[in-house]
């Protein structure tokens, strides 16, 4: 299929969905507060924009997201790589991780509030937890599956130090797996950012709760679509960077 044809089909799919939705909302089968029509969203956006809410909420959510993402990704990758390189530590972490990891990020909300109050820090903390685990496992597995033959080549050609091997072979060889983890975390982060704000930290999530309390469902839909768009943009930018970094792959 040609590139234009793929793009065109994507657009046709999206437009059809919007038309179906619009038709259903206008048919009168359900109340407009239960399912707002997509055509109501631009108006909602204008009013939120005029009030300055949209900009503020997006900025606030983005800052929670960015902080949580940076902390979670950085710690996850570093600790994952380090553990993979130390067989003893790796063996001793197995059961700790098995028990701690399944705890969903949102289950940390009580502690987040007790430790940090209803604050930006609390939101960033919750977001970073989910992202941490994704990156931790991605990095751990990626480093463990580095081709031992290539490490041997580096040694045969004089790179005997652990640091040399890490930067010459292990990290580049593990980079596809690590980047894959970062990208998954990028998506997971937007999912938790809203949930983390539902308990009152200013941001998109909080605004959605307010709006739903007033049955302003068009505003809720506006912010739902905003999240979708923000995720789409971050993922797309990351994908471009990823393709560049991994140009060496087949």
């Amino acid at each position: 299929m040609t590139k234009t044809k793929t793009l065109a089909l994507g657009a046709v799919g999206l437009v059809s969905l919007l038309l179906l939705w619009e038709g259903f909302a206008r048919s009168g089968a359900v109340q407009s507060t239960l399912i707002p029509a997509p055509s109501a969203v631009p108006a909602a956006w204008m009013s939120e924009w005029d009030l300055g809410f949209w900009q503020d909420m997006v900025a606030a959510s983005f800052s929670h997201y960015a902080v949580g993402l940076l902390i979670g990704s950085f710690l996850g990758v570093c600790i994952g790589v380090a553990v993979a390189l130390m067989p003893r530590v790796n063996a001793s972490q197995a059961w700790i991780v098995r028990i701690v990891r399944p705890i969903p990020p949102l289950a940390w909300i009580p502690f987040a509030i007790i430790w940090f109050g209803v604050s930006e820090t609390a939101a960033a903390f919750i977001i970073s937890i989910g992202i941490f685990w994704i990156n931790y496992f991605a990095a751990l597995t990626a480093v463990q599956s580095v081709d031992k033959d290539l490490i041997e080549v580096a040694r045969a050609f004089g790179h005997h130090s652990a640091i040399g091997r890490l930067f010459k072979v292990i990290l580049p060889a593990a980079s596809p797996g690590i980047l894959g983890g970062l990208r998954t975390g990028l998506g997971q982060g937007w999912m938790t950012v809203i949930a983390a704000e539902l308990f009152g930290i200013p941001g998109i999530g909080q605004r959605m709760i307010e709006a739903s309390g007033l049955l302003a469902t068009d505003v809720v839909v506006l912010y739902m679509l905003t999240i979708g768009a923000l995720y789409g943009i971050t993922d797309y930018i990351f994908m471009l960077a990823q393709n560049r970094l991994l140009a060496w792959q087949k």
Partner: protein
Amino acid sequence: MAKIIEISGLSLGFQRDEQQHTVLENLHLGVERGEFLAIVGPSGVGKSTLLRVVVGLTQAFAGDVKVLADKTPNRRPIAMVFQEARLLPWRKVLRNIMLGLEGLDLDAATRRERAERALSLVGLAHCAERWPHELSGGQRQRIGLARALAVEPELLLMDEPFAALDAITRQGLQDELLRIWAETKKSILFVTHDIDEAAYLADRVILLGGSPAHVTREFSIRTPRPRARDGAALAAAVGEIRAGLSESYAYRVASSA
């Protein structure tokens, strides 16, 4: 003639469950400067392990490897070519060749220049900016050779470097290697299980056999170079080695029964 490497009383093998299993025992072997020495033997006699010991990737159980090459800060005395090219897939060809130069006392321009020279030596100067996955198997193997040549070693270790290639490519690369050897005057320690290859390439062929393995026979191939692949002189040498090999194989079977 002076030796480049002197191996004495070397025993090696593998370790399993904290137990040493000796595969190759009490090996005495010297490589003369400029000599092309081939080591031939069936799988499992420790040929590859021997090279790994010499280059320092693994430890021998006993014995001594003396490398008599000059130590200079901008060369490595020994370099290895592996059976699979083992190029780093995230580095373009030229950067792959620079791998061994990065730990040496060289500035970036010199590293580049030496890598380019090694690349021209294997006839792939036009591939400098390609990714390894864009190359054929034979080309990849030549890059592996260039990577070893770039560190300007006195001794080149080659671990069945052409075994994974098709027959036509293999012939081409054998001749290429002989040309490079003549041009650079390196000493080469070449491991193979291909008798024709050993006889065609080497000045001297050492047969390993038995269990634990040891040197069972040694042949000097005096056929003058360039050698004809189908010449009578070479055929005689091959026949002799082949006879020696079946002898040592029979011995190996008998002693392990």
